[in-house]
């Protein structure tokens, strides 16, 4: 139509190519989705009306039945009630339709299923420093349901594979009729289809982040806490990789989730938009700690036994930013003891010694403290520590052995 159009399109092509090249190297190139654009697409009591979604729900009913009866679940009514309470606060219009299950898996994860039930891993409860962070993750998962991500992804995948199949067939038949070989283009189209599916998945995650930030801000939590989660996770993965003399994995075009770095940056920008200046936000740390208090030793125990000392140490240091206590000091000792590099025995001894000085020191801290005192030849002090251990844990599996040590 005009001369400039050609120039423009050439320029846009160049820009597009440049962006594509940049995204190949970083894997994070995408536009931020703004929280204010995120409107829930379902109301209370949502039920599917279309055949494909009904089919998905039917499959998920069975999945929920299996998950609800799994012996990996933690059934403690205080904890499950707490999680239900949170999703009831940050769940938007579907708040009272959600079900939430807690699975004992020492990994940083939570997931939402298409029918509105969520599974939270215990590894998440270990890593969250306050209720606002936990609410952030749960709000992100609620966002997946509220924005109908699963059925939208499924339809996107169906549409793209349909198009690819038709395109491939037409190219094959058409190419044969016209005497041209289009196989190379087909391979390119196949890669393009794959990449666009992964891109769609990353976009859904970005939507859920923005929706989640909006939801927690509406519930009175500081939206910046969602960005803090990613900062913590990046730190943890870097520490874990450093210990193994590796590099932390960065994003790629084949990822289903945006890279942690880009999520953190976007969530920071979201938080700036959503934070009301002068408003006092409560992260409800005290309530969070009192709720997870009973399970925290288990959370730490599961973590230190993963044989990932880099991550475990980082996690304990991060949690200790809110103040050291006997439990954290004891598990710090456990990280060193289990790592068992040169000098780690001394580090562990120091941690156990520090742990027993706190009123909340677990019984095992006295046991290990006693053993290290014994090694140093401080028999009288060791016996005192063992005696304390037996008082705290009279039914310990090794009680008979410890009694023998006491003489």
């Amino acid at each position, binding site marked *: 139509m005009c001369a400039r159009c050609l120039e423009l399109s050439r320029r846009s092509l160049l820009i597009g190519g440049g962006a594509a090249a940049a995204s190949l190297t970083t894997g994070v190139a995408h536009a931020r989705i703004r929280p204010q654009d995120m409107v829930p697409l379902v109301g209370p009591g949502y039920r599917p009306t279309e055949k494909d979604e009904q089919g998905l729900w039917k499959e998920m009913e069975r999945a929920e039945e299996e998950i609800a009866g799994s012996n990996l679940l933690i059934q403690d009514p205080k904890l499950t009630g707490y999680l239900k309470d949170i999703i009831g606060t940050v769940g938007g219009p579907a708040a009272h339709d959600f079900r939430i299950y807690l699975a004992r898996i020492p990994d940083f994860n939570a997931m939402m299923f298409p029918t509105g039930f969520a599974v939270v891993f215990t590894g998440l409860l270990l890593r969250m420093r306050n209720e606002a962070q936990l609410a952030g993750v749960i709000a992100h998962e609620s966002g997946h349901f509220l924005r109908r991500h699963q059925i939208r992804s499924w339809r996107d995948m169906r549409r793209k594979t349909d198009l690819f199949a038709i395109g491939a067939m037409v190219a094959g038949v058409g190419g044969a*009729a016209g005497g041209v070989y289009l196989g190379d283009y087909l391979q390119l189209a196949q890669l393009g289809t794959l990449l666009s599916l992964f891109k769609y998945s990353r976009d859904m995650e970005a939507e859920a982040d923005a929706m989640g930030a909006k939801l927690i801000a509406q519930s009175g939590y500081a939206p910046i806490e969602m960005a803090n989660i990613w900062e913590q996770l990046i730190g943890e993965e870097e520490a874990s990789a450093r210990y193994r003399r590796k590099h932390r994995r960065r994003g790629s075009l084949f990822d289903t989730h945006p890279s942690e770095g880009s999520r953190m940056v976007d969530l920071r920008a979201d938080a700036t938009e959503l934070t009301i200046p002068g408003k006092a936000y409560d992260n409800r740390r005290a309530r969070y700690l009192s709720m997870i208090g009973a399970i925290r030793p288990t959370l730490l125990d599961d973590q230190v036994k993963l044989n990932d000392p880099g991550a475990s140490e980082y996690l304990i240091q991060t949690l200790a930013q809110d103040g050291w206590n006997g439990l954290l000091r004891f598990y710090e000792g456990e990280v060193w003891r289990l790592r068992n590099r040169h000098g780690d025995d001394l580090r562990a001894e120091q941690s156990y010694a520090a742990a027993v000085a706190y009123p909340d020191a677990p019984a095992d801290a006295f046991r290990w403290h006693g053993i290290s005192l014994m090694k140093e030849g401080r028999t009288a002090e060791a016996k005192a520590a063992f005696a304390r251990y037996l008082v705290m844990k009279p039914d310990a599996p090794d009680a008979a052995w410890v009694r023998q040590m006491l003489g």
Partner: protein
Amino acid sequence: MRKLGLALALTLGVSLSGCVETRQYADVQFTPPEGDYKLLVLRPDVTVGALTTGGMIEPRADWTNQARSSIVAALQSQQAGRGGHVLIVQHRNELPGVPEQELADVERLTAAVDESIVLHKYLGDYLPTKRGRGLDWTVGDDAVQLGRKTGYDYALFLHAEDQVASTGRIVLGVLGAAGCIVGFCAPNIGGATQLDYASLVDLKTGEVVWFNVVRAGSEVPGIKFGDLRTPQGAEQMVERLLGRMKPGQDVRHQQGAR
């Protein structure tokens, strides 16, 4: 997202051969139940979906319900013909005297054992320790306890999955066939596939005494071989799967010697 990869591999990959195939294994001492036996059929695990144009499987709730009731009806009429006393448990809370979770545990354990049988007997990962021993798997004490509590002799587990080619898939196949005229021949893009398996557990010993797999597939979309949604298709499947139970190796040898 491993599922996504799998779905894509299925979409872009080559489909199964176009035929119906069954292969059964039995415990060496197995004699097919006859006469006055009591059989417990645990909730049949049925899924029916549509095969999309691109080759993905879209689960369909209405078709699945239809197929499940057809299969249950077919099972009932087949077993009635054999003289057995049959109870088909459609929901886990329907078995008197057995709590829901306990039945669920037996179901899950059997599902895991069945998967292992499929892996080591059918998919090529043969175990040298099990060679020549017929079917050598057990569900163990849980199954024995279930038998003791309910008074049933056998438990049957049934799994069936079926895909019906969508119109788009059929059209694509027709296009592929039409391409043969110009020299691009691709009629065999893969159509409906059905996979059914069943295992029979002896509730007195806890052992899996008999196992059978039916696999049916067509490379050309639009060709059918028994639609599980219809009474006829379900009957055909139940007959293929459970119709001819062969006795175990030792039993057959004895019968041959006589």
